[in-house]
């Protein structure tokens, strides 16, 4: 699960990480109140940031022509003027696709005077099965590019889960970033807080880019998370009721939200051949084989190992909810599941939805003969495939001639 920048900053703040002061706002009245608080407390510059789960906000364009999803403002009125052009409007960035995302929340925060930008992140190192803290003096840029061109500029500290993060590891990172004195101490505290956020929240990733040295009133410097991104381990959400409430359904595809209600794993793609498969690996492989034979998959859909008649039926409705679908491939390896149960589910779903599109079914596994008979007796026009390859070829051909 992903969360918004303002939510990520709320979590980081709970674990002692300094963030610029600011408030999330859903209405213009809230925007004005937040801006008034900021300017009244002595800040000279505010930043208005669109809250969507996609990068490239600053360089994005709103559909009504307004440029930039992140804006600097020097007065309360200027903040409100920007907000009028952002709240409720659709922002298109390089990561949103042409349809863009509607901005429902703005973060109105203090725009700090930035002296230097760093990078810090915590994620899982799959090779070592341990968390790794990555930090770099090259902040505010694409870190993947840094990793490729100058890997020596990325500091890494692996954490032994038996003892947890040690203070010396925080000191190594602060020192590696070239910090001294008060800033060194502040950075140690910050590294510990960022790691603690990752571990305590069961995050899959915590990324702060940029992490900044900022100059406060009176010239005093501090180190702060100016932007923040947190991804969470879905498997661990059950133990974080507070984080579950941060889920923003508006950021997810409606069909994917609907699928999740039935415990179906559905991901919408751009193609026109829908597939309904049991098992994640087989579902990916089915997408691949459709492409191999010249077709284009419309979705990933794993109905799970023990799909019921109701789930098969729900799955059909969801894939038909995508108007781009021109044909369907059902590929279920009925290992333990009784194929006759699956066949009954398919027949019911086809009748219920009044399916008109070509449907190719690949039958294999337990009680397959009874399943084939059920499909035959139903009188439905469907095409059966003998192997994955045969079924994929047939669905591609059917879509091309339909």
């Amino acid at each position: 699960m992903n969360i918004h920048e303002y939510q990520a900053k709320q979590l980081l703040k709970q674990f002692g990480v300094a963030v610029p002061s600011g408030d999330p706002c859903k209405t213009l009245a809230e925007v004005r109140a937040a801006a008034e608080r900021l300017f009244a407390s002595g800040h000279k510059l505010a930043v208005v940031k669109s809250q969507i789960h996609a990068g490239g906000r600053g360089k994005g364009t709103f559909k009504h022509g307004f440029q930039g999803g992140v804006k600097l403002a020097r007065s309360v009125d200027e903040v409100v003027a920007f907000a009028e052009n952002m709240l409720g409007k659709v922002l298109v960035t390089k990561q949103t696709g042409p349809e863009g995302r509607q901005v429902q929340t703005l973060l109105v925060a203090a725009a700090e005077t930035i002296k230097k930008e760093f990078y810090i992140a915590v994620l899982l190192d799959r090779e070592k099965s341990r968390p790794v803290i990555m930090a770099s003096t090259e902040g505010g840029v694409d870190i993947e590019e840094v990793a490729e061109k100058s890997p020596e500029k990325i500091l890494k500290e692996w954490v032994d889960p038996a003892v947890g993060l040690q203070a010396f590891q925080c000191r190594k990172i602060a020192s590696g970033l070239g910090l001294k004195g008060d800033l060194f101490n502040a950075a140690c505290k910050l590294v510990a807080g960022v790691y603690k956020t990752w571990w305590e929240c069961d995050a899959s990733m915590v990324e702060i880019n940029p992490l900044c040295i900022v100059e406060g009133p009176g010239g005093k410097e501090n180190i702060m998370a100016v932007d923040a991104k947190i991804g969470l381990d879905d498997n661990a959400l059950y133990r974080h009721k507070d984080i579950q409430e941060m889920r923003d359904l508006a950021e997810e595809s409606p069909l994917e939200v609907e699928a999740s209600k039935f415990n179906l794993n559905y991901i919408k793609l751009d193609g026109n051949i829908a597939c309904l498969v049991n098992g994640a690996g087989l579902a990916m492989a089915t997408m691949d084989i459709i492409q191999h034979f010249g077709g284009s998959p419309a979705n990933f859909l794993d109905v799970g190992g023990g799909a019921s008649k109701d789930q098969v039926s729900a799955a059909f409705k969801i894939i038909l909810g995508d108007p781009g679908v021109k044909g369907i491939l059902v590929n279920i390896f009925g290992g333990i599941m009784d194929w006759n149960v699956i066949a009954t589910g398919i027949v019911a779903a086809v009748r219920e939805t009044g399916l008109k599109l070509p449907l190719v079914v690949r039958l294999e596994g337990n009680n397959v003969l009874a399943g084939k008979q059920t499909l035959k007796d139903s009188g439905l026009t469907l095409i059966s495939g003998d192997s994955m390859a045969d079924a994929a070829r047939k669905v591609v051909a059917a879509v091309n001639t339909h």
Partner: protein
Amino acid sequence: MSILVQSNTKVLVQGITGSFGAKHAQLSLDYGTRIVAGVTPGKGGQQFEHNGHKVPIFDTVADAVRETGATASAVFVPPPFAADAILEGADAGLTLVVAITEGIPVNDMIRVKRAMEGKSTRLVGPNCPGVVTPGEGRDSQGGCRIGIAPGYIHKKGHIGVVSRSGTLTYEAVFQLTARGVGQSTCVGIGGDPVNGTSHLDVIRMFMADPDTHGIIMIGEIGGSAEEEAAEWIARNGTKPVAGFIAGATAPPGRRMGHAGAIVSGGKGTAKAKIDAFRMAGIGISPTPSDMAATLLKMM
């Protein structure tokens, strides 16, 4: 021979009274697997009965091991309690713990993996279909089935199968059996980002097993376990290996069902894995329909 388990391996089931655990304990008993004990805390002293089998239930794995001599376990315990169940199996000195449970938090597995370092217990999984060493009977009965794989699709023979995905494992096994070719052992290592046994671990066992003559290795996007295995095969491989990687069409940044199946930051792509296979002389199955054919062509 075979790897990990043989037909005489004594198996216990952790979570035998849950609906999922019970169903698959029954199927394993029907397959002829020696399910000698069940563990459900609080139900010690009861029996799990199925088709004339009476399997004693214990409160702890340690009790079950002491009373029955079980050396392997299947974990069907729900996600919040699964890490504890795995560690209980390791503590009891089991040789093999196979964790079927899907949905264990990554941080739990990070701790489990660390706690098992240096221990003699091997963990397979979690989020996996388990391990099957087919037997000599009808529909391969009489073998050892730990987990949730359909037993009847197997056939005793000399091909080793290793995969992160359950249904793709069945697909490969089915293709082999349909051609009259049997399997030594089939191992599902699971779809999670932190797991106990890697592709490489299983490949090394297959290469050392005199009864395994060829290997099908099935991978998917995410991580670099397939590349690691391919590098080792390039240097040390002595048997033909055919491979398939799922997820060439998966969009980057999205988790494809399995918690570990994700391309992030340009890492873990199908292309990188297929290239590594090619460099190592592993036969590339062009589609998931050609896994068995690709291997048999090499043998």
